[in-house]
């Protein structure tokens, strides 16, 4: 069966695209899928460090696109999961080193050998983004519940629709339940209402992410972390399983509301 090509993108930088790509790749791998994670952020590669594979890079995507090596030589085998590979970005080149046609050709070469190809898109709406969505069968938009991130997500949704790569679906990252509870942050329903696309996952803010990034071990491998569970759930949804959304308590109860009034008074 041919691989599904899923591009993870956002518009705004720093909302968690690379973290999402690394974690969904590992989670799908753990679920027995054959996965390739492609870093399309040429010049600013980071998927390698989040996966803990930065010391193993010999060839990169530009080497493959330019014919300096075979595709198989550039694929780096993951440390933790047996059927997961990384195709790293080049660090010393720019986005024009690869074309959207190159991306489509590379993905087509891998389709028969894998179940999933996940592409980590760079921020922005320029060439790097065009490269990342060119081969996509599906698009996952990552946003945080913040005005700037949601606005950029809306712009990206429009571009994805214009390229007929949609319908895109949404991952809301870094939800802070206690802030949502007190009306200091947009809640997931607000974001879904504004963007009007399908919700694929809600990931709570989790300090353990920083630790996992420090170590280069994706958080899905940490069975105690709430964010890890959220990403594992998204992976299962990608496989068609009906998984209820995490019970992130977003609504304050009466006691909490009263306590808040008293504090403010």
């Amino acid at each position, binding site marked *: 069966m041919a691989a599904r090509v899923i591009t993870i993108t956002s518009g705004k930088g720093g909302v968690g695209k690379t973290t999402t790509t690394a974690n969904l790749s590992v989670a799908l791998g753990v679920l027995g899928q054959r996965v390739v994670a492609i870093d399309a952020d040429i010049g600013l590669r980071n998927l390698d460090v989040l996966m803990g594979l930065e010391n193993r890079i010999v060839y990169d995507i530009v080497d493959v696109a330019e014919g300096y090596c075979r595709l198989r030589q550039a694929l780096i085998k993951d440390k933790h999961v047996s059927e997961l590979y990384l195709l790293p970005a080049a660090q010393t080149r720019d986005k024009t080193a690869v074309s959207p046609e190159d991306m489509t050709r590379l993905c087509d070469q891998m389709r028969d050998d894998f179940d999933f190809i996940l592409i980590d898109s760079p921020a922005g709406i320029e060439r790097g983004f065009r490269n990342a969505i060119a081969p996509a069968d599906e698009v996952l938009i990552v946003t945080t519940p913040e*005005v700037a991130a949601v*606005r950029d997500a*809306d712009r990206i949704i429009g571009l994805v*629709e214009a390229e007929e790569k949609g319908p895109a679906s949404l991952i809301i990252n870094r939800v802070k339940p206690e802030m949502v509870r007190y*009306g200091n942050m*947009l809640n997931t329903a607000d974001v879904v209402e504004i963007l009007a696309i399908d919700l694929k996952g809600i990931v709570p803010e989790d300090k353990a992410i920083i630790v996992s990034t420090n170590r280069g071990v994706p958080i899905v491998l940490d069975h105690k972390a709430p964010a890890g569970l959220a990403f594992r759930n998204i992976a299962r949804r990608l496989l068609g399983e009906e998984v209820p959304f995490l019970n992130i308590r977003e609504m304050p109860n009466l006691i909490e509301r009263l306590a808040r009034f008293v504090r403010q*008074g």
Partner: protein
Amino acid sequence: MKILAQLFGQRRPSSRDIAKERLQLVLAYDRIKISPELLQTLKNELITVISKHVEIDREGVEVTFSQGKRHGRLIADIPLLGTRGRRK
């Protein structure tokens, strides 16, 4: 008493409410891909075409853009004065 007043009184809008309102407004503009000039051109040409077939109140014609959930909508409001005898 202050606590009671706050309990029963008007609640200040939360920063979440403000964020939502600001986003909805800014996105309404972001999503419009039709400039006011284009809208005027469309209006003029609609008046020309339609008045070939029916008599309309040219001054009363309104062409507006409105934003739905994900798709925009052009709305033309064209008051008729009555059909002219001519047919094509």
